[in-house]
């Protein structure tokens, strides 16, 4: 374990997490990642609603959506739900 990890004396009891899931980068679990085709995307925000991790964010000030790959687990729900098939799941090297 890296030296950043705390000892048993430093952490709260019973697994109460000091940072909740914010500090737990689940993005490294993924195999496939969502890739968005900007031509097809209508910014309907369906993917934002369906993402179970809140990893797709709507930025109203910029009028666009952003994927947070630190937390995206690559489940593919967004691709499945997209009404215009603008999202496809691909291996990172593709």
């Amino acid at each position, binding site marked *: 374990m890296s030296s950043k990890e705390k000892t048993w004396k430093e952490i709260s009891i019973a697994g109460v997490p000091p*940072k909740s899931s914010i500090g737990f980068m689940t993005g490294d679990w993924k195999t496939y990642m969502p890739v968005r085709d900007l031509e097809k995307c209508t910014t309907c925000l369906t993917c934002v609603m369906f993402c179970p991790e809140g990893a797709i964010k709507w930025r109203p000030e910029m009028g666009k959506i952003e994927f947070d790959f630190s937390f995206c687990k690559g489940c593919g729900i967004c691709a499945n739900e997209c009404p215009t098939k603008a999202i496809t799941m691909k291996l990172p090297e593709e």
Partner: protein
Amino acid sequence: MTPKIKQETTAMNGDEAVAFAVKQCDVDVVAAYPITPQTIIVEKFSEYVANGEVQTEFICTESEHSAMTACLAASATGARTFTASASAGLALMHEMLFVTSGSRTPVVMAVANRALSAPLNIHGDHSDSMAERDSGWLQIYVENAQEAYDSIIQAFKIAEEVGVSLPIIVGLDGFTISHTLERVDVLSEDVVKKFVGERQFPMVLTHEGKTVPFKLDPENPMTMGPNALQNYYFEFKRQQVEGMNNALKGIQEANSEYAKISGRSYGNGLIDPYKLDDAEIAIVCIGSTAGTLKVIVDQLREEGMKAGVLRLRTFRPLPVEELRNALKNVKAVAVMDKSMSPGGLGAPVFNEVRNALYDIKQHPIIVNYIFGLGGRDSSPRDLRRIFEDLTKIAKTGVAEKQVHYLGLRE
């Protein structure tokens, strides 16, 4: 020691004594499912609820697994929580016992110790709670109904102490204690409430960066029961060991503090030695068997035999130092087990005691007597035979075999 506070003398069996103690401890939630020989505890307590004698929320669950889950959840909100079980019921709780201890929720549970099937048997032995040895629960075993009453009161104090924050089992021998009418002296409710006090909470750091009491509270939200994988699981398990270590002190303090208000104490709370100071041979046991053994020791002492008894009151945490100090000058020790570990070398109490004594340079010869399974009676004559065996072992310095079955038709 004379009692400082006036007490009422009652006649109760062990189960009733437990229910009466719970009634006095200002318990918020009881979630339970009846099973022989614990049934009277739940029945009696539900009477208190029905009569309006307690303010407790009583949850009738559909199984013991649900009972323990309800207790864990109630305790997580900060409620003082109690349940009781035995045998198959305790076994059905198995999964949730680990969740309860891992969640550091100080649930108090009375276990009216009973055999496990098969063959089906409702009578007393320690198979049920010994099978939960590694579940992370504190374990205290009592000798009689009086101690059952006293220990339940102490149990809330011990379990809820900030440094401990672990659930606790108080074991009473099925039928031998649970169903036997005895004299039980009880304290007044005010005195008990004052002794147990308000539930204490350890402080934890939440995701909002606040240090708050460890309980579910809408004002201070926190995540309980999250996952902790390769990176942190081990650390949380180590914390539980520390809770156990802290309980060694907590149990002794509860025992001596309780003695001040009641005039009753049980050894130092961890071990209860009897005529052990100059003993050359000794028997280690848990539970009600100690009562019979003490009578036999008195007889043997009159006959000039230097015999003693050590009742192990606290099995978890194991009082290693106390066991070593108490038994270091004894020549031969017999450890009695009312449960078995088929295929192992002896049974749990033997394993633990022998293990603890291994590091003494000149440790006694230690043998195991498995007895009383399925409630089989152990007569004074049977128990006396163990001391006769020990005399022979002490004299020759040799134990022919390590594991014996007492009262078994060979």
